[in-house]
């Protein structure tokens, strides 16, 4: 089966988790703060040591190096950080102007200083930065938490379009149940103890 497949994933005394996400579809992940949603995404991105197996389109995580896996299975953290002075320095090449427009960003934004950006602009740029190497699966940790209503719609449409065009599976973490109901057909909840249950 293509898509993202997780089998008996165990990390930091959590799990085992087994689930799969079909190509082009989104799994919604809900749960109280501290329940371990971020930890789960980090383990799937191979940023934390884990037991169990991960596959993307039938290629096992263990057959790739850590960086190779992370370029394919891209993890967007809730807060974006920037380490160079200018926005453009974080991109290997400037993204298409069309994408900047779809995200509601200024066409000159690549030349801006990072500390001129608003939180919302940073978040939208972090998504473009994540997608620049064409990852094959996305792990999104509260991707729209810092955005206003107008930008939320743009970002949702942008990401869904990316997933469809690239047949990429995604896991979307959100506090907002109505957002998950709008975007996803499959939803799961992590309970405070770490167990996972399917939401109707």
């Amino acid at each position, binding site marked *: 089966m293509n898509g993202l497949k997780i089998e008996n994933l165990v990390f930091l005394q959590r799990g085992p988790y087994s689930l799969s996400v079909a190509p082009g579809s989104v799994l919604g992940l809900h749960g109280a703060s501290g329940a371990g949603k971020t930890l789960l995404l980090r383990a799937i991105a191979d940023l934390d*040591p884990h037991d169990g197996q991960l596959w993307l389109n039938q290629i096992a995580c263990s057959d790739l190096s850590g*960086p190779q896996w*992370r370029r394919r299975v891209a993890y967007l953290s809730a807060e974006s950080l920037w*380490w160079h002075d200018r926005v453009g320095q974080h991109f290997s090449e400037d993204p298409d102007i069309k994408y900047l427009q779809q995200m509601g960003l200024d066409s000159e934004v690549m030349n801006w200083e990072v500390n001129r950006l608003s939180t919302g602009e940073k978040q939208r740029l972090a998504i473009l930065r994540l997608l620049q190497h064409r990852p094959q699966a996305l792990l999104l940790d509260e991707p729209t938490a810092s955005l206003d209503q107008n930008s939320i719609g743009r970002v949702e449409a942008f990401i869904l379009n990316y997933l469809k065009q690239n047949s990429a599976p995604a896991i979307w973490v959100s506090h907002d149940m109505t957002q998950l109901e709008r975007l996803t057909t499959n939803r799961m909840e992590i309970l405070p103890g770490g167990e996972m249950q399917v939401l109707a």
Partner: protein
Amino acid sequence: MNVMPLGVFELSLASLLVLLLAFLSFWHRLEIERPLLIAALRTTVQLSLVGMVLNVVFTTTNFYLVVLIWSIMLAAAGWEVMSRQKVRVKGAGRFFIGTSSMLLSSFSIMVITLTLIIKVEPWYSPRYAIPILGMLLGNTMNGIALAMNTFTNLAWNRWQVIEQRLALGQTSSEAIEDIWRESVRTGLIPIINSMAAAGLVSLPGMMTGQILAGNTAGEAVRYQILIMFMISSGTGFGVILSLWLMRRKMFDARDRLRLKEGFYRVESAGSKK
């Protein structure tokens, strides 16, 4: 030609200046008098003891005795590097990363210098081998301590940026490259500065010593240039080696950051015990 003799009385006169400084510090509550006096006392005791040992050692050419003294010097330098680190490797690495880097860089450069450049017979003659290693170690130690401290401190403070770069698919060396570069620079800048200022601002210690001892300035200068080249290359190689070992400790085989697992932070490093 002989140096003007220096006795206990003359040294006591000089020590009055240190005492005066300590008093000033006490008076103005600068709280530096204690470390200052302890360090002054350590200098006096350590150098006097070394003087006595060297007097004996210089009369022999026993290879094993020289090796023993080298080892003591190296262990002391390794301890010093470790105790200046604010963020340290858990386990034996906190001592051995710095020490093995100094061993490889300082010793190999010393051996090359003694056998191929100075060509003294035998190459381990204590009169050359001990002071030359001392100068090399002293400088390499400073460079390595500075570089390692910068490296681990910056990584400790910027771990979130490192992880975010890893999450974007960068390798461990890409994710830490700016910290790496900054640390190498920090370790090398003191020696680069002192090479650049040598002769204009300061007469380096060894050269001053040779001139005071009655050597010709030309001879003293040639030795000093040699020492500068050895020190700067030894420091550079040692710094790079120590950071390379440090980086291997910081990431696992799958390029995950293991900072909180493999390192710990001490609050009082650098400020003397």
